[in-house]
């Protein structure tokens, strides 16, 4: 039975909403397959507005891979803004995909990619608009399997009640494997219904099905244990790691939106994983080990991406792009290739060293030298040791001096506030650093026309990191320190005007902290917030701290207990049954060393220090150099 497009019903609503173009699809390189040509159908969701969701690489890659798979189709869906939500409710228009405008409920799987926890309320809106019961337990045979992925899925417990399944890690291979399990099950006539399908997925150990695990609690509220409630379901669920990125050169056909989005560029992931060992960084911990894409594949992907998309900017993505073993050759090769073509290259990179400036110089060869970004993260030497960000003040001053003297006029510095063991003076140290940076710039250039912007993010302890046991700083403390820092910067006659200051208040971090390290009991808070109208919590104009606190109180959830409380070594953490490969003892030891000031090197250049990932996951570090070069493109 073909599934009808709901577009004609949506169309009547579009003249009444903001930016209607985001709902119509039709992007260059988008795919619409015949419904009956496939027996496995995925709706892929990024639970934020289209302008944020469309550029997301994870969704784009899976969309392509699944659509390439015979007998499988994938379409995309995004969170609709409240203005359209209201009209859709009034007119009974269901959550739809933007590709063929099919109702989301008609698909076999609704795969949702969570980069952050702040998309949880948007998941509930989408389910509700789709006509899919919010609670997994209430869903029937006609409802899709609601499957979470992305970084937040490494602790999906707060949304466990709303999910049928979750996958950890790289999605390329597991999404194909899931498609095959579904195809086989449907081919047999869907024996045993939904339950059996979920069992088949769970048995493999590659898919986490929350309902097959029971959580028991101690009287004091801590978790006693998390155990499978069925035979054949594994005790722990493991993450997925794609080896040899050269074999997965996606996106090959980048989606080019008509609507304006947050990133207007073609992005190539130049490596996955990061082993620098920054203790606050969940992404670095859960994506180990490092797997590089080779210089030749990068070159080919850039060439193809520009041709297929017409974008005039290319971004080389990764967690720390300057660390690619052949980044110098990549930068030079690409800059040579695209010299004089109005194609600009960008390298989001935050390493504090002169080499990074060489790269930036290469990329801005025929453009302007506007801003360079560095991330010392901690304001004092002591603080940077705690987080294992091994940057000295000397390094930083030397680096910015070089940058200013080579024509850069603006330097951006990223820091965090609320880090474990942080004292007021650690944060005030940021002001001293910024002033020294300006001073160094003025000396190097003999000009007062230089600027430095200080950006501060609130630290949130994340699962699967050495700081997973840490107590989060309360928002009063964070706000007090930020105010002191601001006063110190603004009050300075000599430097104040040269230094820009960007920060957020501490409240959103507390909610993020609750959702990051929460367990299944936090689900009631998310639901209550959503019922009270909570939407788009990642947007400051929609976020309401008071709403979250009121909902927590109503649900009997003690927010401090989840956020500011430090955990003991032997406390069962809500995500302990989910395996990112990191050895728990190594993590604990690293947490102890953080407090005592011990450092960890990068295992890319130094011997393995047994974080546990490679032996557990059967993976290995994959890096160059390959010794190859990028040759000039032959002009046709």
């Amino acid at each position, binding site marked *: 039975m073909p599934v009808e497009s709901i577009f004609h019903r949506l169309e009547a609503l579009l003249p009444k909403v903001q930016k209607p173009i985001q*709902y*119509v699809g039709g992007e260059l390189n988008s795919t619409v397959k015949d419904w009956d040509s496939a027996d496995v159908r995925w709706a892929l969701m990024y639970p934020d507005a289209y302008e944020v969701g469309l550029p997301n690489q994870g969704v784009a890659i899976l969309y392509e891979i699944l659509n390439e798979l015979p007998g499988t189709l994938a379409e995309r869906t995004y969170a609709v803004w409240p203005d359209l939500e209201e009209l859709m409710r009034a007119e009974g228009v269901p959550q739809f995909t933007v590709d063929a405008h099919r109702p989301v409920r008609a698909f076999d799987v609704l795969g949702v990619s969570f980069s952050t926890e702040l998309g949880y309320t948007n998941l509930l809106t989408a389910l509700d608009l789709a006509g899919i019961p919010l609670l997994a337990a209430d869903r029937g045979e006609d409802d899709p399997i609601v499957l979470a992925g992305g970084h937040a899925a490494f602790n999906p417990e707060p949304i466990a009640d709303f999910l049928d399944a979750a996958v950890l890690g790289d999605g390329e291979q597991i999404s194909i494997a899931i498609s095959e399990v579904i195809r086989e099950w449907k081919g047999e006539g869907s024996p045993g219904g939904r339950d059996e399908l979920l069992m088949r997925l769970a048995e493999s150990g590659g898919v986490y099905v929350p309902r097959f695990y029971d959580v028991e609690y101690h009287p004091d509220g801590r978790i006693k244990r998390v155990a499978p409630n069925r035979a054949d379901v594994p005790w722990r669920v493991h993450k997925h790691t794609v080896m040899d990125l050269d074999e997965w050169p996606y996106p090959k056909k980048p989606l*080019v939106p008509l609507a304006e989005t947050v990133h207007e560029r073609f992005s190539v992931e130049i490596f996955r994983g990061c082993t620098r060992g920054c203790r606050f960084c969940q992404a670095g911990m859960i994506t180990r080990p490092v797997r590089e894409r080779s210089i030749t594949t990068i070159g080919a992907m850039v060439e193809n991406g520009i041709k297929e998309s*017409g974008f005039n900017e290319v971004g080389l993505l990764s967690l720390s792009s300057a660390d690619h073993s052949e980044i110098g050759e990549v930068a030079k090769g690409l800059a040579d290739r695209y010299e004089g073509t*109005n194609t600009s290259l960008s390298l989001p990179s935050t390493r504090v060293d002169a080499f990074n400036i060489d790269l930036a110089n290469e990329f801005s060869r025929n453009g302007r030298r506007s801003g360079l970004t560095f991330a010392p993260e901690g304001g004092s030497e002591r603080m940077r040791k705690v987080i294992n960000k091994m940057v000295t003040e000397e390094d930083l001053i030397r680096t910015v001096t070089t940058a200013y003297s080579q024509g850069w006029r603006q330097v951006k510095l990223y820091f965090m506030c609320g880090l474990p063991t942080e004292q007021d003076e650690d944060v005030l140290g940021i002001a001293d650093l910024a002033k020294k940076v300006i001073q160094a710039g003025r000396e190097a250039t003999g000009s007062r026309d230089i600027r430095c912007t200080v950006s501060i993010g609130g630290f949130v302890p994340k699962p699967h990191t050495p700081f997973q046991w840490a107590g989060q700083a309360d928002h009063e403390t964070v706000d007090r320190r930020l105010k002191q820092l601001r006063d110190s910067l603004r009050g300075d006659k000599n430097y104040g005007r040269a230094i820009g200051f960007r920060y957020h208040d501490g409240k959103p971090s507390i909610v993020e902290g609750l959702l990051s390290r929460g367990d299944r009991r936090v689900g009631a808070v998310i639901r209550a917030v959503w019922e009270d109208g909570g939407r788009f919590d990642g947007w400051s104009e929609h976020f309401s701290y008071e709403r979250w606190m009121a909902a927590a109180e109503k649900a009997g959830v003690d927010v401090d207990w989840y956020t500011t409380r430090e955990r003991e070594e032997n406390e069962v953490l809500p995500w302990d049954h989910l395996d990112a490969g990191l050895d728990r003892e190594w993590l604990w030891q690293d947490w102890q060393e953080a407090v005592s000031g011990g450092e960890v090197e990068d295992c890319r250049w130094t011997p393995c220090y047994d974080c546990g990932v490679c032996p557990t996951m059967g993976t290995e570090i994959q890096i160059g150099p390959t010794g190859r070069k990028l040759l000039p493109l032959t002009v046709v």
Partner: protein
Amino acid sequence: MRYAKRGRLRFTSHRDISRAVERAVRRAGIPVAYSAGFSPHPKISYAGAAPTGVASEAEYLEIGVTTPCDPAQVRQSLDESLPSGLDVLDVVEAGQGGLADRLEVSDWEVRLPGADRELAEVAVEKFLAEGTVEVERLTKKGPRRFDARQAVLGLRVSEGADRIAAQVQGEPCVILRMVVRHMTPAVRPDDVLTGLRLVADFAPPVPPEVTRLAQGPLDASTGALADPLDLDRDTTRGGEAGPAGEHVAG
């Protein structure tokens, strides 16, 4: 160049279209000229774009190129590089004189699903009988009052045969055709609809579907809309060179 904005792509804004065109130009490998300066921009100029939500069969733009191009080839490669729904219809090498100046009037089709045909006819008659019809529209600078009557050169309830294939729907549908002179402030089809409501209390039940069918100079002798690109076709056919230093396809 003349292009169409069709179907669901009528929801593109002017900014969306200009981004799409810039990318398509690059994908198509058209040797577009860039402005000099701090951040170079491709030389593409747009003449009076239809508003967001309004479809069009007659939008115009000009592209500055660095080397002469074959118009037929530009038409084909650019059309292939644009998403379907933004369709390139006609490309000529630009001759003398500005394109924007030739776009004096627009021919609009306004489809009103579910509206009553007789009421529409009465309203049109009353509207045309008026000398001026003051309407108010909310602009970025607040509400603004202006006359919507004088710019309207022609207004009639048209026959069903005028439907555009891409928008065929099952329901009966009243179609208005209006020829409106471009002036400042611009009088748009929805201003004329506001006028119909004011003079005859005529209000269609659902939002109208508006399509610009043609734009161009008014032929003084026939009173009909002429093709604005004809002038370029004439000059280039005569073998005259384009403006020195920069060739323009569009």
